[in-house]
């Protein structure tokens, strides 16, 4: 299997795409080779033997694996070169220490204010207790107020049933064939109500 050189970033040609598909199953094994001998042991012995057998027989795959290995080594080197000059600014340490010191002070302040509140709360609580005690004594020791005598139940004989009826005239208008037709309707309403007998006698 021959792998022609390809500039990074350039798209795969159709033939390259086919080759990439062909080496697809091996690509996963190929990536194993760059992790180094120790972590390569994570492959099962059968898979490792198969990969090594294939590598010994296929120069293209061997080159691909070597290329990945080289790239991985270069990547490590590049990461270290790119970050070698970076130093954590000293103000970070200063800010961490300052914030921790502030946090230590804050709970102390919180504790102090709590205790001062407790100190002030004692006399207030005592005064409130005395007030409650006095109020309790006042309500429980005074003479009970006699309840007003309840009215005797009203008997049916003391009541008079009054029935009223009245007539409600309703005047309506409607359109019929271009004429306005009016009609007067009388509706009788009946109302029944019970009144105390003495009230009925007054009337």
């Amino acid at each position, binding site marked *: 299997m021959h792998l022609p050189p390809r500039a990074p970033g350039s798209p795969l040609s159709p033939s390259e795409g086919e080759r990439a598909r062909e080496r697809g199953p091996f690509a996963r094994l190929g990536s194993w080779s760059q992790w180094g001998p120790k972590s390569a042991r994570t492959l099962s012995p059968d898979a490792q033997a198969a990969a090594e057998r294939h590598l010994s027989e296929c120069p293209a795959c061997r080159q691909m694996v070597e290329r990945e290995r080289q790239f991985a080594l270069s990547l*490590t080197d590049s990461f270290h070169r790119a970050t070698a000059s970076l130093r954590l600014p000293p103000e970070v340490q200063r800010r961490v*220490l300052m*914030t921790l010191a502030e946090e230590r002070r804050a709970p102390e302040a919180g504790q102090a204010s709590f205790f001062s509140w407790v100190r002030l709360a004692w006399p207030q609580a005592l005064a409130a207790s005395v007030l409650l005690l006095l109020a309790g004594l006042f309500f429980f020791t005074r003479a009970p107020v006699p309840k007003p005598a309840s009215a005797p139940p009203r008997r049916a004989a003391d009541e008079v049933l009054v029935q009223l009826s009245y007539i409600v005239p309703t005047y309506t208008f409607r359109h019929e064939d271009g004429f306005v037709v009016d009609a007067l309707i009388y509706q009788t309403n009946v109302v029944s109500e019970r009144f105390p007998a003495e009230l009925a006698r007054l009337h």
Partner: protein
Amino acid sequence: MDEGQLVQGLRCQDPLAVQEMVASHGDRLFRSASLLCGNQAEAQDLVQETLFQAVRSASRFRGGSSIYTWLHGILLNLTRHYHRDRKRMVYDEKLARLEPAPQEEHPSRLDVELTAGALADALARLSGPHREVLVLRFYEDMKIHEIAAHLGISKGTVKSRLHYAIAEMQRRLPAEMNLFGACGTDVKEQ
């Protein structure tokens, strides 16, 4: 001060222990954060927050890993939040127009600045999970199982992410950087 004493000092919020932690791990964390988020100012803030959280949560550190690995775990969590928040940011076209245009650089320059810029650019185009495994593997020099444990994913997932990330980096990095060793990108028949 050994790691046990350092953790003990951090639990007591001892300023000396904090200074020791910054002196021992600050630069390395800052470099890793710069690679993970691609922005030095943000990296500085992320490291600062990492150090804060480390001191605050030192009592919960059981010593199951090295202090640096523990710190890096905090940094990774914070970086993920950072990327999540960035996704939520609304892109303002007016502000974007006010931003200065990127300076054109000569393609044949092979100095460190160009390498760092191209590397940062290629890294920035990777997704967060792919960037994480790449940085952990090739900058932090972690092994596959260590990365899997650190990120809480399977070894297979680590491998597949690494494979994709490397392929993307190979595709995006300029050939002028000569990252492929003395033979460049050419594949020669043996």
